[in-house]
């Protein structure tokens, strides 16, 4: 390019705008700047004129060179387009993929909707989607049906674990010195303290229980408390041990409070009871269920009934217990073992039978 005297730096920014100027796309300010520069510099003016002239020449040449496309290309292309159009008609294009729609096209009304549905459901991935949706729906419905039961179970579990202190309080009410209470404590502690805690940890319902709102737990617990009061109304404030009629322990209560000095024989149950009491002080041991308390109550009723049956001909359970304790206190371990054995034999379903059996074994060991 032989642009004579035009200083390159001066018009360089204007050259950047020359294309816009040649195509009439420059703004007014740029147009004025270029035209004033052309008026000011002959070299720049010649440069712009040469470019404009080149553009005219090239357009003229392109117009001369312009020729129609070969007809055989058109025919082959249209044949291929017809085949592809037939394929697209057969497969049916997904309507959602089209942004531009021909409003005058067919597929209107219910017939068109049915055709669209048929095309949609005739595709394999549609069935996959429907299958996944069905499984999910069944899962949600199943959860919905089980939810109340699960929630009730969870509430019961929480209420049971929460109501332990109350049950424990009623169980701990008898004085430690009371004969027989140690065994009862031991039994309750051994049989009932552990399982609820374990269940709470292992069962998935524990999660639900932990998620339960405190308000609902309290409400549920309130109901359980009422039920407890109803069930054990007569012994409210007393011990679960009181399910054995109060008079059953009357001789023991009236007996000297001074317990016999702990012997090897008698220390076993007492030690177990103490351990049970210490465990009862722990939250996990405290955990008792109302149902379990209720079952103890039921067993006590059965036991009471058995005692009444036995009362006509043989010493009652309470009398045997008192006798066994008395014999142990008197270090008559043979007789005590016999009485324990009698208790085991006559009251095999008694919750304390296991303790009596241990006492019997201990007495025999001492005797031997």
């Amino acid at each position, binding site marked *: *390019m032989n642009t004579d005297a035009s200083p390159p730096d001066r018009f360089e920014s204007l*050259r*950047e705008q*020359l*294309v*816009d100027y*040649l*195509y*009439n*796309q420059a703004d007014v300010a740029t147009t004025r700047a270029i035209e004033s520069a052309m008026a000011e510099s002959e070299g720049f003016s010649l440069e712009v004129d*040469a*470019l*404009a*002239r*080149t*553009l*005219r*020449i*090239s*357009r*003229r*040449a*392109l*117009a*001369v*060179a*312009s*020729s*129609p*496309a*070969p007809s*055989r*290309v*058109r025919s*082959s*292309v*249209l044949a*291929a*387009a*017809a085949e*592809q*159009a*037939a394929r*697209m*008609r057969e*497969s049916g*294009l997904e309507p959602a*993929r*089209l*942004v*531009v*729609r*021909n409003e005058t*096209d067919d597929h209107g009304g219910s017939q068109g909707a049915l055709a669209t549905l048929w095309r949609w459901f005739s595709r394999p991935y549609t069935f996959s989607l429907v299958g996944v949706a069905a499984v999910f729906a069944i899962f949600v419905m199943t959860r919905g049906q089980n939810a109340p039961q699960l929630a009730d179970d969870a509430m019961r579990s929480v209420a049971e674990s929460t109501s332990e202190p109350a049950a424990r309080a009623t169980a701990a009410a008898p004085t430690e010195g009371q004969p027989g209470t140690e065994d009862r404590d031991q039994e309750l502690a051994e049989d009932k303290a552990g399982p609820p805690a374990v269940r709470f940890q292992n069962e998935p319902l524990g999660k639900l229980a932990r998620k339960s709102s405190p308000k609902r737990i309290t409400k549920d617990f309130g109901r359980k408390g009422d039920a407890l009061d109803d069930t054990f109304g007569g012994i409210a404030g007393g011990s679960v041990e009181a399910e054995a009629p109060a008079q059953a322990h009357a001789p023991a209560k009236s007996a000297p409070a001074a317990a016999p000095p702990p012997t090897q024989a008698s220390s076993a149950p007492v030690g177990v009871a103490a351990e049970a009491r210490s465990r009862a002080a722990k939250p996990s041991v405290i955990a008792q269920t109302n149902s379990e308390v209720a079952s103890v109550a039921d067993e006590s009723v059965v036991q009471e009934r058995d005692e009444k049956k036995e009362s006509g001909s043989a010493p009652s359970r309470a009398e045997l217990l008192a006798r066994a304790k008395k014999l142990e206190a008197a270090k008559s371990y043979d007789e005590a073992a016999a009485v324990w054995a009698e208790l085991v034999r006559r009251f095999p379903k008694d919750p304390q039978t296991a303790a009596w059996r241990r006492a019997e074994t201990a007495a025999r060991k001492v005797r031997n």
Partner: protein
Amino acid sequence: MHEVQDEELMARYQKGDESAFATLVSRHELRLWNFLRRYVGDPDTAEDLLQEVFMRVIRSASEWRNDAKVSTWMFSIARNLCTDHARRQVHRKAASLDATPERIGDDDSGPRLLDKIAGHEPDGESRLRDKETILRLDQALAQLPQEQREVFLMREVMEMPFAEIALAVGASEPTVKSRMRYALERLRVLLADLNDLADADVAVATGGR
């Protein structure tokens, strides 16, 4: 009367309306053909490429979405095909328009490329002149760097706005305009002997396109 947009025609073709595609072909084949013809120089290659452009559009029609202009899409396909062809030509020893001036001047025997280039005026002196013009044009275009040539042809043959050219070639609009200016400056030198064309009776003026 309202002219149906390219995009609407393509949507119809997606539904199986083959006449819509025929309309698209007739609307764009001339510009595509001349772009390809001027870009690659060889009419046979240009014909193959033109067919390939439309075949690719046909094959991809079902996947087309209305987020780009159909014309820009077609021209981008054409430009990419030309780019691929130019890459292949680098390693191929073929009859080049660059070599024709010497050959034309030195050897009068046998067919000349000048004779192969189609013109549209069949008679006498004007026909010869047009052929000469076309030859000079093709020679000049062949000497342009590819990036300048494609911008020049997209703007002057396909009549694409600079913004669409920028999209097609993947460059900014100022860059495209800059390439256009360099192309014009180079063509001014290469087409200097055709200055009389500028004064010919052709309605070519700056601007307005």
